[in-house]
């Protein structure tokens, strides 16, 4: 049981990164980015390429993947979402599904459906009072906590972070106060790219690289973001921890293949009981 809680915590930390990314883009662009799963996958493949094709060690491959995915995300923003004039959030949603489809199949085109693994040294797990924490889990925890601290600092203490929160709060007022929306949006996508790439790398570290790894986390990530109140990045972290814990502890009773099914059930329960999420302000349809 304790082991399940520990695993759940680590898994939650992993889900938290894309959940934060989802919340940031939702808050600022006002649409749910359905390509987040494909972005995670892309991040994992970018690290794989840097790692195996160019021989970069993982501490180098991860930041390379993050930067490249950030640039890709900006390119997609400029090439796709920004080009859709007068778009309501539903049109953007559909467009993001198209983006996911393109990303996923481009990866398939070059790398097929084969299962791949990163080239990393194997290390012995840490054992403490009977609890196992393997090396990958430790890396996940450290990387995720550092990334979260950096995001918190960015949002609370920097000009860019205030611009992002201001746009999320009221885009018109933000513009009137001198905030360049387009530039802030680009930065938001870049951050989203970095976070999803890190998540992709960590999933790859802990297991394999294949075209579906991101898709397999999509439901969990969305459930986490909804529990935290879509658009609220701090809530998303709590939502992710809840999802991670529920998924891992439920594995004691239900087959692990139903991990996403569990998230779906949690998602529906939250929507029925507290549709605004545990923290978010209600975003009623209008």
């Amino acid at each position: 049981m304790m082991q399940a809680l520990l695993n759940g915590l680590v898994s939650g930390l992993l889900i938290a990164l894309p959940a934060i990314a989802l919340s940031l883009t939702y808050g600022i662009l006002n649409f749910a980015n359905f390509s987040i799963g494909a972005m995670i996958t892309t991040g994992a493949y970018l690290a794989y390429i840097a790692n195996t094709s160019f021989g970069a060690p993982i501490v180098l491959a991860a930041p390379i993947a993050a930067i490249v995915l950030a640039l890709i995300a900006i390119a997609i923003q400029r090439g796709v979402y920004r080009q859709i004039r007068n778009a309501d959030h539903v049109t953007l949603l559909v467009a993001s599904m198209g983006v996911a489809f393109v990303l996923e199949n481009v990866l398939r085109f070059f790398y097929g459906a084969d299962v791949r693994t990163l080239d990393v040294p194997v290390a012995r797990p840490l054992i403490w009072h009977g609890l196992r924490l393997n090396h990958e889990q430790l890396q996940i925890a450290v990387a995720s906590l550092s990334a979260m601290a950096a995001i918190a600092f960015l949002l609370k203490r920097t000009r860019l972070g205030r611009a992002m929160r201001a746009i999320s709060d009221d885009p018109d007022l933000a513009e009137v106060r001198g905030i360049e929306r387009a530039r802030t949006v680009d930065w938001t996508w870049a951050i989203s790219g970095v976070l999803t790439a890190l998540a992709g790398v960590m999933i790859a570290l802990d297991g394999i690289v294949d075209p579906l790894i991101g898709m397999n986390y999509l439901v969990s990530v969305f459930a986490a973001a909804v529990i935290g109140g879509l658009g609220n990045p701090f809530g998303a972290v709590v939502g992710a921890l809840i999802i991670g814990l529920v998924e891992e502890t439920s594995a004691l009773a239900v087959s692990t293949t139903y991990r996403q099914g569990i998230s779906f059930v949690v998602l529906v329960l939250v929507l029925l009981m507290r549709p605004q999420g545990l923290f978010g302000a209600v975003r009623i349809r209008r």
Partner: protein
Amino acid sequence: MTVSAAALEVRDVYAGYGASDIIASVTLQAAQGRITTIAGPNGAGKSTLMKTLVGLLRPRLGQILIGGRDITPLSPPQRALAGLGYVPQERNVFKNLTIGENLRIGFEFIRRKSPEKEFNAARDRVLDLFPDLTARLGELAGTLSGGQRQMLAMGCALIPGPTTLLLDEPSAGLSPRYVTTMLDAVAAVNRAGVTVIMIEQNLIEAMRVSHDVVLLVAGGIRGKWGADVFLSDPEVRSLFLGGAKAKSENSGQERRSDDASAA
């Protein structure tokens, strides 16, 4: 009438939200260093005009100039950088940010290069004007009362030091004491050299501080008056029939003469 350069000029502007124009063929000039009030019934298009001035709406036709420079192609942030300050009628503060953060945001994107100590000085000036805010800098703006929120919004527009200030009903929803405080603040800002264009429904109080009045009815400009004569004009009186008549008489002595305040 004092002859002075137009700080802000609107030339034959048409604008609206969808297919049809809400305001049509609007032409007006707001004189440098004065307070111009835009009056008109509800739904006349006053807020729409102001949104067009700050760039939140693009005019379908026409031009907007500040100090002779055509700003029509500029985006709202670019217009803010050009010295235009704006307090919207509603949703005028970032509710999920603290009061201190609201003030900082008001400053930092317009005065990008200014050092921290200039911000501190500007913030102190705003807090002198609205001391109620001082004790609450760390609280979320969403927790403020209507009056305090209005003051914060005004403070955020003032803090970067705009040359022209656009106020959409600064006294709306305020208790009488706050209405006076707010309009006194507007007058003080104006005395410091800022050109003010404001929309007001509290006409009696507004006339106390205004110099010029423009009347907007059904999306069109109906004329321009000195603030001292506006409420006694028969056309205006028939438009604002009812309480306005009686009130306009007892507020007459409070009105400043046009010339005395033009300094």
